[in-house]
């Protein structure tokens, strides 16, 4: 186990030395993941809220579809986005393949169904509580969705967190559409995979430590916010 502890010590050294390559990889990871989660929320929150709050034909099918899409394998999403963005694909002219933009698109496709499906569930539950009061007030459809999303805001923070977790952890989609190109599309998960296969364990471990630290920090922040919301009976 000396190999492991030695590698871990050198990994911590890399982090403390603020290694330029490490920082670049972490920066791109955060940029891609946060952009994708933001885009997924922009799509998934209104979509999920609409399915959760309105009764329309095909609503059950929409719910089933959203729930099924939550489990999309990242490599399949990567492949689909790859085919769409490749030179011969429908969006090939954009020239996005092997750029961070392609990685953001792929992770958005991966995360949006998660956000939508969980939002649908949260909003539907809240709507059951509020529906008659809203009907009594004569609130219109847009007002209803807005009010439901706002009143579910702390629960939806957890929803966004679930999306963030999925995006930070996945490697398949960004690997396929990004290509893990040094100084261009290399992010934490793809770098860990590559460095491990090359036997360069300290960089891989350093990235792993940072990845876990980021996950813990983000989760801790969201949980603290939720706890304060529960204290105010807003949760």
């Amino acid at each position, binding site marked *: 186990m000396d190999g492991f502890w030695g590698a871990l010590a050198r990994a911590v050294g890399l982090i403390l030395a603020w290694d330029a390559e490490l920082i670049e990889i972490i920066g791109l990871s955060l940029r891609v993941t946060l952009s994708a989660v933001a885009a997924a929320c922009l799509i998934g929150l209104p979509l999920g809220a609409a399915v959760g709050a309105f009764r329309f034909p095909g609503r059950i099918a929409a719910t089933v579809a959203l729930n099924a899409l939550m489990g999309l394998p990242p490599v399949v999403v990567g492949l689909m986005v790859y085919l769409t963005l490749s030179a011969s694909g429908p969006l090939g002219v954009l020239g996005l393949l092997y750029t961070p933009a392609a990685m953001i698109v792929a992770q958005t496709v991966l995360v949006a169904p998660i956000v939508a499906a969980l939002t649908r569930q949260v909003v539907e539950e809240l709507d059951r509580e509020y529906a*008659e009061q809203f009907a*009594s*007030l004569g609130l219109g459809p847009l007002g209803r969705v807005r*009010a439901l999303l706002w*009143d579910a805001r702390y629960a939806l923070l957890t929803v966004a967190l679930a999306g963030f977790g999925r995006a930070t952890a996945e490697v398949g989609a960004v690997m396929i559409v990004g290509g893990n190109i040094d100084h261009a599309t290399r992010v934490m998960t793809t770098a860990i995979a590559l460095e491990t296969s090359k036997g360069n364990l300290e960089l891989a471990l350093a990235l792993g430590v940072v990845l876990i630290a980021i996950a813990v920090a983000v989760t801790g922040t969201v949980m603290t916010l939720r706890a304060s919301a529960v204290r105010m*009976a807003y949760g």
Partner: protein
Amino acid sequence: MAEPLLSASGLCFEAGGGRLIDGVDLAIRPGARVAVMGANGAGKSLLLRLLHGLIRPSAGEILWRGRPPGREARQAQAMVFQRPVLLRRSVRANLRFALAARGAGRADRIARAEQALVRARLDRLAQRPARLLSAGEQQRLAVARALACAPRLLFLDEPTASLDPASALAVEALIRDAHADGVAIVLVTHDAGQARRLGDELVFLDAGRVAETGALPGALEAPRSEAARAWVEGRLHTGPAR
């Protein structure tokens, strides 16, 4: 006699193979004070939701000032539910939200919310999360919110059922003020004293049917129907007289 605000004829509601509201005829005049009474499960809450337009009757007709209820009827009515439905926001934000839903402009909304806060003596709790209020304060907020919408007709479903006497009196005071302003009241209550204090007319429901109507307080002193008599005398009553 003034034209009724709201009238119902032959109102029925069926669910799960049963007829839960059965042929109710009712007229609510402007400024009326109707007390709806009856045993648990008699259909009082259902009747209120039907009259307020939250659920559709299986048969029968509801008219608002002689016409099928539309947007105007919605704007002119408000309801306080058996369990107050308060948003996950501050007391003040709950009031402003209701006013916004009713289409009040920004300045109007702010001014009327402050008035409602003072009227319900909730001004010192304005910033508090609404769902942390005591049961009595929550019910006062629910009544204040309904009244802030300036309804002509207010439905109240057991607004003091779970409150201590002092809180109940505070809610009753709000209801009395509203009536003084000309608001018609339809109040579900199990409390005969409250029915006498806040009601001018009685509608007694038994298994979804109107068993007894009449002017209060007389109607409660000498009920003509077996159902109402049994209820007043505190005898167990298990169904409509056969």
